[in-house]
């Protein structure tokens, strides 16, 4: 049968890691857009919009990503909507990411002092101008570190896409384990690759947070 050298294992894992990165980017970008839309909906004066958003957030934060993936893949298909692993993963990860991001960002907007809204309002700016020119620019600086930090959660979240047959890093690890019967090596390498992806991001988030803190003093 096939022989895997250590290099073969590593090479295949690294190749599979491309999908992990790709999925993460999709989730992050998709989640970013949807999360931003949710944030805006939550900031508008409309009460029903706010209630809907908080329902959405509670739904996706209150159920496992694993189940969300299963549902997006097999569940939607049974309702007659065909989803490829790509769309299913992108869909579930986007929903999951957007729920968390909108929550993080809402916290950032809420930490902009009320006086800023009021000052902008008393200068006759309308809601969108207040948001666009006064509140969001301030919330943005606060939001960068936790957002970068959350990217780590997204990358780790993509590991679950393996359960709907998506051959990313974790799934590739499983397949190689079965061909080589060397689980210790394979999973240690898988963990290391994740670590190599995530740790620099964690460090960046922390550094950003420190500079932000320093700037605020």
């Amino acid at each position, binding site marked *: 049968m096939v022989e895997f050298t250590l290099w073969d294992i590593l090479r295949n894992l690294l190749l599979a890691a491309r999908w992990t990165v790709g999925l993460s980017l999709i989730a992050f970008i998709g989640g970013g857009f949807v999360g931003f839309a949710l944030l805006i909906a939550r900031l508008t004066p409309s009460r029903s919009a706010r209630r809907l958003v908080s329902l959405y957030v509670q*739904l996706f934060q209150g*159920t496992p990503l694993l*189940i969300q993936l299963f549902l997006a893949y097999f569940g939607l298909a049974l309702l007659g909507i065909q989803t490829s692993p790509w769309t299913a993963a992108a869909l579930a990860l986007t929903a999951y990411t957007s729920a968390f991001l909108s929550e993080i960002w809402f916290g950032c907007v809420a930490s902009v002092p009320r006086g800023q809204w009021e000052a902008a309002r008393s200068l006759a700016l309308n809601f969108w101008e207040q948001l666009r020119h006064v509140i969001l620019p301030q919330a943005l600086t606060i939001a960068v570190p936790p957002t970068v930090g959350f990217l780590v959660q997204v990358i780790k979240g993509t590991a679950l896409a393996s359960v709907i047959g998506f051959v990313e890093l974790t799934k590739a690890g499983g397949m190689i384990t079965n061909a080589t019967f060397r689980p210790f090596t394979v999973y240690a390498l898988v963990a290391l690759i994740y670590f190599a992806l995530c740790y620099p991001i964690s460090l960046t988030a922390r550094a950003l947070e420190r500079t932000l803190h320093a700037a605020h003093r």
Partner: protein
Amino acid sequence: MLAKGVAWTLGLTAISATAGIALGVGCAWARIHGPVWMKAVTGAYVELFRNTPFIVQLFFIFFGLPAMGFRLSPEAASILAMVVNLGAYATEIIRAGIEATPRGQVEAALSLALSRMQTFFHVVLPPALRKVWPALVSQIIIVMLGSSVCGQISTEELSFAANLIQSRNFRAFEAFIVAALIYLALSIALRRLLNWLGPRFLFGD
């Protein structure tokens, strides 16, 4: 079968929450007050587990560790993975709480002749835990939802049950919807419960 799954999910969560917070407290202490080597070890532990996916940690513990002669049942592996995973997050959360404690509190306790240990457990820790309790509760819920992955190594928790049902009667949609609803109910109930429990049993002295 789903009932059994719920029981397992809750059991796993209860054990890992208790042990994970205890581990977090210990490591947080070590990261702040421990000798240099202890700081380094706990630092590495925290970073390693916070920067790799839970499912990989679980697979490594279950499939990988036996190669080192360290063998665990699926349930034990699940618990171990959940405990060390929660422990890593709890360490950071609790550490932030401890560092926010004013120095004056420690000095007051020391000047009342309390030992360092007594000061930590009676004066520093309770208010620190109270301050970070909401963050800890969120993390516990994330770990509970994460336990859905433990079904992959045959621990018979809730999503394992859902999966088994769908592979027997092939009614995937219903099985997963039901599981999702149960998880949702569990996470809401658990948050309530913990918010009620915490102030009552943890932060008083």
